């Protein structure tokens, strides 16, 4: 533990210093940029809630990537799976008006997870049958998903306006706000996402099946010789990964936006890759990378207000910080 701490701590410090340097070059005082990020993300209760609200899609897409990676697969397709999952949830949620409360609550989430899984399936099928690497297939499937969803909300599934959005979901499908009063208040979604991550961590490290997943990801031939059905496990885990990304989209609809609109995801699917690899693919630590990413994301508009710099600057800051944080994975000389 101390070794991790010593290895890890100094490098982000370098990252923060670089951020300071960037701010300086921008003409602001040395601490203005980091301070603005902090204030933007955590300065007010509203800001903190918005930041926390961004946690759930990051946690779930991060878990989707981490889980597939544990099996030795790279799911770069979370973005598409998330978008289609969100669309499925929004459409299903629209028809939940007459249903009992519990069912109306669950149905959109299930629809989102199922469509996410369905969208992951071609990738694993292409890999096992046709030798197409899943990075390529999932990347291409992203494009199809995003523009397919755009077509659908502008046309057949839209609400009739020119805004490119679906009708709002039924009240039964909406996740209630936890804090009374706050308009875009916090829901239970981040907590649920966090519990799913921890559950996945426990399953991976404590269950026989989880052990078999880890072993297959570490050495597929060895796993096969140990009687582990590697190919079918790969299929199942990859579908589960897609389902998690789909669930992330469905949760966004049910808890935050209550409808689907075009350009739905600000890149949560890709942030999931960052989140997963920042913590070495360990689901139990996703909350940490999720917090870092969510803070940076939440602060972008505040940067514009406070310092008058482009929100695009946050992308640079994020990249610089994350690169330094990632340095912890260097191996010692062996």
């Amino acid at each position: 533990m101390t070794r991790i701490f010593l290895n890890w701590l100094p490098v982000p410090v370098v990252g923060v210093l670089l951020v300071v340097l960037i701010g300086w070059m921008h003409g602001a005082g040395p601490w203005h940029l980091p301070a603005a990020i902090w204030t933007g993300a955590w300065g007010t209760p509203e800001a903190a809630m918005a930041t926390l609200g961004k946690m759930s899609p990051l946690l779930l897409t991060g878990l989707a990537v981490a889980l597939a990676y544990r099996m030795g697969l790279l799911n770069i397709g979370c973005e598409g799976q998330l978008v289609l999952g969100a669309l499925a949830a929004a459409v299903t949620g629209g028809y939940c008006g007459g249903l009992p409360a519990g069912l109306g609550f669950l149905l959109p989430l299930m629809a989102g997870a199922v469509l996410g899984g369905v969208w992951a399936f071609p990738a694993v099928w292409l890999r096992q049958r046709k030798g197409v690497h899943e990075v390529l297939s999932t990347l291409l499937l992203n494009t199809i998903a995003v523009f397919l969803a755009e077509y659908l909300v502008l046309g057949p599934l839209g609400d009739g306006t020119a805004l490119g959005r679906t009708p709002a979901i039924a009240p039964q499908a909406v996740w209630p706000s936890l804090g009374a009063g706050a308009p875009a208040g916090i829901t239970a979604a981040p907590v649920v996402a966090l519990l799913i991550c921890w559950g996945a961590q426990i399953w991976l490290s404590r269950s026989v099946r989880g052990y078999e997943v880890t072993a297959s990801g570490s050495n597929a031939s060895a796993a096969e010789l140990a009687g582990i059905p590697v190919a079918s496990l790969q299929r199942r885990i990859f579908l589960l990964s897609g389902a998690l990304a789909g669930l992330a989209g469905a949760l966004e609809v049910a808890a935050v936006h209550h409808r689907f609109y075009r350009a739905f995801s600000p890149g949560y699917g890709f942030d999931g890759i960052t989140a997963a690899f920042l913590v070495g693919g360990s689901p139990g630590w996703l909350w940490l990378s999720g917090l870092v990413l969510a803070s940076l994301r939440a602060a972008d508009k505040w940067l514009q207000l406070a310092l008058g710099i482009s929100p695009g600057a946050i992308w640079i800051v994020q990249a610089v910080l994350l690169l330094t944080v990632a340095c912890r994975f260097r191996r010692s000389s062996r």
Partner: protein
Amino acid sequence: MTDPHWPEGEPIIELRGISKRFGDLWANRDVDLRVRRGECHAVVGENGAGKSTLMQVLAGRWKPDGGEIRIAGTEATFGSPRDAARAGIGMVHQQFLIFPQLTGLENILVGAPSGGILSLGRTRARRDILRWCRTFGFDLPLEIPAYDLPFAQRQQIELLRALHRGAEILILDEPTSLLSPPEVQRLLALLRSLKEQGRTLLLVSHRLSEVFAIADTITVMQKGTRIVSVAAEQTSPAEMARLMVMLGPAGATGSSGRSEGALSDQDLSSTDVPPLGRSGPPYGEVLLELKAACASPHGNEAALRDIDLELRSGEVLGIGGIVGNGQRVLARVVGGLGDLSSGRILFEGEGWEGLRLAERLRHGLRWLPANLLEEGFCAGRSLWENYLLGHQRQPRFQSRGWLRRRAVCEWTEAELQGGGVRFRDVRQSADTLSGGNVQRMGLLRALSGSPRLVLLEQPGRGLDLLGQEWLRTHLRGLSEQGAAILVISYDLDELLTLCHRIGILYRGRLMGIAPVGGPEQEKLVPWMTGIES
């Protein structure tokens, strides 16, 4: 440590106080070594004695934590294998470093300075390499991808790679562990001719018979330090064997079964170890039966043709032959990864066709694969995770689908200690084990519990004398308990010490099965080359 046999003459290599540490483990501690120009210097020792590490320090793979390297009198620091290659040092590794998708020629040229405009340098290099091949009598196809090549030719690639870069000092780490007896003889002849050309050879080996066939000087290592260096003619295999184990067992942990007195001189000299001992047929009921079994080829392995064999309870049956004659196909068929194209495979009279590996494991099959690192080892994972492979579905290690980790760890610890594997904690990464200890772990894993049918491929690979002795004892115990054991090895001597009967595969056909110690044993070597007699 002082000794009276410090080699005289001008040293081309001088190591002074070399130390190398991996984590808490000292792989080398204060090692001095002198190698004369033009000699063949053998380094022997138990598994984990630090031989490979020392050679890899010399070849620039590892940077030593202390000490100095002097080549031909000048101090050298190697930051990478490339630096060592510039100083004229080339290494042939135990796990051959081959790029499977590159051709033989590309594999030889990899990393070498290109020597001219692309194709021109290549043509010249090709001509040079063909000349080497003619000189050494290599029949090496240069234009096909290396994954199709048998081990002996992969080794030739490594050797040519070193020579092509102008290596004057050749390090060979366990060069014979995957070769058949005729191939070993050819390699030894080749090494002799390299020595006559004035090259210096450093040889790491467990096989004392080969060491004494070629080495001028022998250095014994133990627990990371050099014990002694002696001229080969002043010592004997038995004395060397005693020196290798003399100062107590190598592992502070896991030494329970060993004591100095337990092994007599005769046991220790690898040339005349007693065979397993025949309890005499009939052994027991037939457990495994192959009837007119045919299977299609796998990789560059020959297809199986009309194999008939019976393996009885309590019997150890060896399958030998030169690499690539269908041994792996046979292993896959018995293991359940390969299908028969015709014929039958029966276990206790029941058809095993179409039964998956997982189900065969439940029937009591255990399988030690030939390339443990590639097929039976999870790099970067802990010892217990590696040891559990293949046992993970046993009821005693789970309750309702959840792993009983305490039970697994305690079991792993007890088994590894009993088997003499050097380790500190079962939670440590399995990467910290030396090659020989990995092999021991794989063997322990395959032999653990009470298996019914054990399939061992190359079981002695990288094992030291004590390990081989332990393997013999363990197999004897298992066979007395009624397990049927199928040993597949390219090393005929190993099969002769381990098995009751030995069959030879030649181009996918079973040439015959001869009882060990019987008159037919003479036929084994002719069978390997396809002579029926």
